[in-house]
């Protein structure tokens, strides 16, 4: 299970890195090279986002990657196949990230079985709160996959407990209000929020939204288990190609 993996890796490292790619953006060949580069750079976990036409929780950078991938004809089946390629080739846990409609339309139970066969280790579905997730939770449980839910700065403490009850593996803490990719202030306010997350989660924590540089990762050390690098990898990819992403990621934990 993911939780054990995170705990084992944490014996060796101050903080783990989880990165994110949008499958099919800019194309599948480049994605494969990107995953290779990220794994070589020491990334510990990876989110594979299936592009969706209505990515309501994503900011401009990832939104654009979603729509460009779809415009180039990326299909769900291609994403399953790509996930299978990387999950069998590279020895780190991979998770799906996407929106609920893709699971629902495929058939949630069938989708989860497919994830297990790939094999993926979990999924992040930001528009599926636990209250609406009955079928998904049952299927994830019987396939021994981790449903990753989200804490946000305005999640009440009672709700943190409720979400923790349905979570497995780790909980993804959104560092601030807003969408992916904007600026986050890594400050005392964030610190007390993370302390509260940690107290209620009872399982490892990942923090994402606006983690862009070494100082951010340093700030998170000792407070959480995983730093999530999302939009910034895409920015580096666009500016300097695949090698630039590797250099950037290596620099985060030097």
């Amino acid at each position: 299970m993911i939780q054990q993996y995170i705990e084992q890796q944490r014996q060796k490292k101050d903080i783990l890195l989880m990165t994110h790619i949008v499958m099919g953006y800019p194309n599948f060949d480049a994605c494969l090279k990107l995953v290779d580069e990220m794994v070589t750079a020491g990334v510990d976990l990876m989110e594979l986002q299936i592009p969706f036409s209505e990515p309501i929780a994503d900011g401009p950078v990832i939104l654009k990657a979603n729509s460009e991938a779809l415009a180039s004809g990326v299909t769900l089946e291609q994403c399953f196949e790509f996930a299978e390629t990387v999950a069998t080739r590279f020895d780190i846990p991979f998770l799906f990230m996407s929106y609920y409609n893709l699971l629902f339309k495929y058939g949630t139970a069938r989708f989860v079985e497919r994830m297990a066969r790939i094999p993926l280790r979990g999924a992040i579905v930001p528009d599926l709160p636990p209250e609406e997730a009955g079928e998904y939770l049952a299927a994830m449980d019987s396939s021994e996959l981790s449903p990753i839910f989200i804490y946000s700065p305005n999640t009440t403490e009672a709700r943190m407990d409720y979400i923790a009850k349905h979570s497995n593996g780790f909980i993804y803490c959104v560092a601030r209000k807003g969408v992916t990719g904007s600026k986050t202030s890594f400050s005392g306010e964030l610190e007390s929020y993370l302390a509260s997350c940690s107290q209620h989660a009872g399982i490892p924590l990942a923090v994402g939204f606006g983690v862009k540089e070494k100082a951010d990762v340093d700030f998170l050390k000792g407070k959480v288990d995983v730093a999530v690098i999302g939009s910034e990898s895409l920015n580096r990819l666009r500016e300097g190609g695949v090698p630039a992403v590797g250099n950037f990621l290596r620099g985060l934990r030097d």
Partner: protein
Amino acid sequence: MSERGYYGEFGGAFVPEILTATFDELQLAFETAKQDPAFWEEFVQLMGSYSCRPTPISYAENLTNRFGGARIYIKREDLNHTGAHKANNVMGQGLLVKRMGKTRVIAETGAGQHGVATATMAARLGFECTIYMGEVDVERQRPNVFWMERLGATVVPVTDGSRTLKDAINEAFRDWVSNMDNTHYVLGTACGPHPFPEMVTYFQSIIGTEARKQILEITGKLPKRVYACVGGGSNAMGIFSGFLADDDGDKRVELIGVEAGGHGIETGQHAARLASKDASIGVAQGYKTYFLQDGDGQMKETHSVSAGLDYVGVSPILAHLRDSGRVRFEAATDKEVIEALALTIKSEGLIPALESSHAFATAFKEAPQLSSDDVLLINQSGRGDKDIFTVADAFDDPKWEQFIIDKAAQYQARAAARRSS
């Protein structure tokens, strides 16, 4: 959120965690307001003094004679301030925003009517206002953009996705997740996560409540059929609300929702979610309903001559009413709509919006099937003046075209003079 707003299997609240607390707050404010009789009174009072409520029902005698069937009556939502039923929902939500103590409102708009109505409300009640509008719609509804900006709103053209209504909704949500502390999202139709479908229907039900009383006073009987166009479904839910309970035997009021048939159902270029077999159940934009989507679950591009009906999803309440057999759905093509509009203008001196003209088109097809004892009611959800550019194109009016050419030449000369000075 304890109560999740399901209508049969449709509805729900599929919201990102960051908005959960905001939705809880909204639901509590709405429930509290609903239980306070003074709130509805304040709403009715405001709509009577600021808009034009109660809006009248007009008897369309010339159209009635032409079709030789049912007597045709028209509920005049076009006479609201800003020219459409949108004002009802917007002013209602505005009163709620005051109760919640927020200072900024945002909204999506397709045709621009909801944007103009929201900007008007914001000006009147003293809120900051940002309107998200698909780039395609900004192009086809420039006059509304002009008015929103004059009213003090910031209009943001949305360049993602299909650059229409659904993309404007996504962008409004993205604003909201950053600014929920001081901002309320004034969703314009009976869609989206709970409590929006219920809340928008609640404010729009003023149409149906008035209409039922008025039609009984005027004709002494209930209508045989009620027609409304359906984009997201707010004007339809508004007028249908008054007649939903009239479901027994020969007193039954048949309710007909008319969707955008676009270039024709068979072409695939339409926005008929409930009248065609092209849509399937899905979850997007925070709620579960029928969407026009592909086999993977990606939303498709839709087409309609009217921006306000050009939308991939539909009210979860209407999806349920369709599946339970209470509301029948039909589609009218762009061509039929333009013909119905031309006929209504010439016969009655009424100028329905292109959206509303869908309801007219289907009502005209069916009126001859009914007897002259029967009453037929059409909801004229908005006025068509705003559509002058689209309608003039559809009518292929050479004098209008010349006017635009001359006007463009004037502007070009003015711009050239400005550059050289």
